């Protein structure tokens, strides 16, 4: 038999790779050969499918069967049952919720139904290490058409008309940015195109998935951008912590050069363009555009004042177009499908889709791409599957350390740039961290601030000193030593940080604090006035006690207490010595009578 009739797609993104997908790929190769199927079925490593919580994921086409949490031991059964006999292995299919039926195809799941994949269109569909497969999906035709049929201005006009705004977080209209860079001049005529792949927000991994799953779409878009603005060199600034993405990009760049899609005289035209990688060492501030460019130049990654904006004076003092990975990932789709088709998706002011990395207290941890204007409720309850263990949804944090919290009563807010800004959060790069009733909002604010204190580059005083003082004030509150005056001081300090920091890192650092202080002021008050942490997170405010009415004197708690803080004899009420207690909660886990009270 000469025709491959079945494709076995195995996720080779970072998530699934860390849970053994390379071993699964090897096992498939071995089993297919052992069962004489190697000519009928082929194994394809692919990018992220998005449902990372259920990884490693294997999809078998043409049936489109989606197997989740596959182990190398399951492989022999999949080959002998599904590939040889055509029987889908029911026990490995994805099940949504305990009472739901198994769904064969991933596209039929609740997780996928409300999604619309543009930036992630090829992730989990093609082999990212094969340029031919990318071409098979229509890849590099947008570049060919632009170079041979369109003028640079026509390309820019299409991008403008699509209404796409920067997916890195700030939401600046991309078409305008392209126009500014195209209109700018430099003495020697040199301009640059750069890509911000320094995805640093805690909990965000959409750019990584595009880079790992569809690297050529980024290269093609950057070459188009180079043609549009008049640049012949591109740089991708990517974090060294993304080794798989770096490797796939290196392979993709070599393939594109080999095919002549990068290099001199592309498609026989006068346009020449090449791309180089620059690896960042993992500083959060290098995701800020001026710091990123300073780092590419080989200097210490510190921001500088704007203006001049990068479009006027960027890399090496030349006009530079800098876009985020996800923005570029939309470009070829727009050129292939038309600006109108893109503008028809989403809301009038926020067109297209947005990718979110769902994390925290959510069932379907993973990547989702939804049309702009979809409500937070749809994302969390329908696509995300709600909070695990039946816990109550409390808030969602968007925009990482620069964003804010959206409380449960605003769950019907449509997700677009302007609605999020209006409620004191921001789109950010797309991290969406879900919190349930067990999360303390003061502690969350402190967590993000701690990150900022670590990552502040120290160039300007407001950020270097201000964030540190802010962190100290929050620590004072979570330790139970806060006063009501501290809350006023915090607000004042936040205001100064916003107005006087040099770059966006410092200017947006107070956002998590301010938004929790506004939305969850009662929790702050509880910490300050009642010296109590309502969620039971802040250890210094926590007390474990034993309810004498419920205690049966079984001694189980005393036996398991690691510090010997519990005393009492058999069949007598036990007591916790608060001096010795380290608030680990072990007693509560072991008590069979619900006698341990946390509060």
């Amino acid at each position, binding site marked *: *038999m*000469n*025709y*491959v*009739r*079945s*494709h076995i*797609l195995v996720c080779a993104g970072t998530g699934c790779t860390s849970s053994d997908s390379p071993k699964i790929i090897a096992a498939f190769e071995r089993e297919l050969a052992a069962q004489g199927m190697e000519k009928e079925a082929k194994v394809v490593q692919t990018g992220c499918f998005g449902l990372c919580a259920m990884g490693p994921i294997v*999809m078998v*086409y*043409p*049936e*489109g069967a989606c197997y989740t949490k596959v182990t190398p031991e399951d492989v022999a059964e999949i080959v002998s049952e599904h590939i*040889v*006999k*055509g*029987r889908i292995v029911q026990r490995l299919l994805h099940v949504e919720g305990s009472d739901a039926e198994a769904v064969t*195809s991933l*596209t039929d799941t609740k997780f996928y139904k409300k999604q619309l994949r543009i930036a992630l269109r090829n992730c989990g*569909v*093609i082999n990212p290490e094969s340029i*031919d*497969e990318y*071409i*098979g*999906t*229509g*890849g*590099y*035709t947008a570049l*060919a058409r632009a170079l*041979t049929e369109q003028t640079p201005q026509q390309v820019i006009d299409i991008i403008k008309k699509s209404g796409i705004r920067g997916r890195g977080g700030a939401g600046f209209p991309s078409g305008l940015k392209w126009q500014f860079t195209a209109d700018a001049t430099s003495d020697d005529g040199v301009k640059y195109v750069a890509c911000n792949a320094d995805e640093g927000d805690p909990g965000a991994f959409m750019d990584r998935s595009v880079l790992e799953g569809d690297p050529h779409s980024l290269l093609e878009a950057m070459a188009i951008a180079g043609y549009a603005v008049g640049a012949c060199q591109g740089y991708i600034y990517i974090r060294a912590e993304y080794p798989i993405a770096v490797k796939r990009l290196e392979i993709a760049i070599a393939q594109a050069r080999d*095919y*002549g*899609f990068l*290099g001199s*005289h592309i*498609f*026989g035209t006068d346009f020449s363009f090449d791309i180089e990688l620059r690896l960042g060492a993992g500083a959060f501030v290098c995701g800020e555009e001026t710091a990123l460019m300073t780092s590419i130049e080989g200097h210490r990654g510190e921001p500088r004042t704007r203006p001049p904006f990068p479009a006027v004076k960027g890399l090496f003092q030349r006009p530079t177009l800098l876009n985020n990975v996800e923005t570029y990932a939309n470009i070829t789709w727009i050129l292939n499908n038309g600006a109108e088709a893109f503008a028809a998706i989403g809301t009038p002011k926020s067109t297209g889709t947005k990718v979110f990395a769902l994390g925290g207290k959510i069932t379907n941890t993973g990547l989702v791409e939804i049309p702009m204007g979809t409500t937070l409720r749809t994302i969390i309850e329908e696509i995300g599957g709600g909070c695990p263990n039946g816990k109550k949804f409390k808030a969602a944090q968007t925009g990482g350390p620069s964003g804010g919290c959206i409380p449960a009563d605003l769950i019907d807010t449509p997700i677009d740039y302007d609605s999020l800004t209006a409620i004191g959060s921001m789109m950010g790069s797309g991290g969406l961290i879900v919190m349930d009733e067990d999360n303390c909002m003061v502690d969350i604010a402190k967590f993000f601030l701690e990150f900022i204190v670590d990552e502040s580059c120290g160039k300007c005083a407001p950020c270097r000193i201000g964030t540190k003082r802010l962190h100290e004030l929050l620590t004072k509150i979570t330790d139970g030593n806060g006063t009501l005056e501290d809350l006023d001081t915090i607000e004042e300090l936040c205001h100064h940080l916003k107005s006087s920091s040099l770059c966006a890192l410092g200017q947006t650092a107070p956002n998590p604090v301010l938004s929790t202080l506004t939305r969850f002021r009662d929790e702050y008050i509880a910490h300050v006035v009642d010296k109590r942490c309502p969620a039971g997170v802040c250890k210094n405010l926590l007390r474990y006690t034993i309810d004498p009415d419920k205690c049966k004197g079984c001694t189980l708690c005393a036996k398991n207490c690691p510090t010997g803080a519990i005393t009492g004899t058999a069949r007598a009420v036990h007591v916790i010595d608060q001096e010795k207690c380290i608030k680990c909660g072990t007693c509560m886990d072991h008590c069979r009578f619900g006698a341990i009270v946390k509060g």
Partner: protein
Amino acid sequence: MKSLEELKAIRERMQKQIDIRHNDDDRIRVVVGMATCGIAAGARPVLAAFLEEVEKRNLKHVTVTQTGCIGVCRLEPIVEVHIPGQEKVTYVKMSPDKVPAVVSEHLVNRHVVAEYTIGAADERGR
């Protein structure tokens, strides 16, 4: 250096391969029974013949796939053809030499090859 024509050629060649990964509802599905009974009765050469014909005629929107035992083992190899919006047609006692007729008549021209169907076999059985 690739030219525009070369790009187009690669795209067309690869599109066919990647096509298999879209399980749209509007595709024609040819399902070959491949349980032990089917394989013993010679389903594998039938499956191969379908793949070969579909490839040779460059048919898009056709998926050749397989399934387990349908239950009428005496009539294997069994092939079902699902065309969206139409009732499924079951061909029985298939062999590779019957495949070209099914592909050209049924998949391309949409005329069911009545003599190979389960209905015709039942008639003969009486």
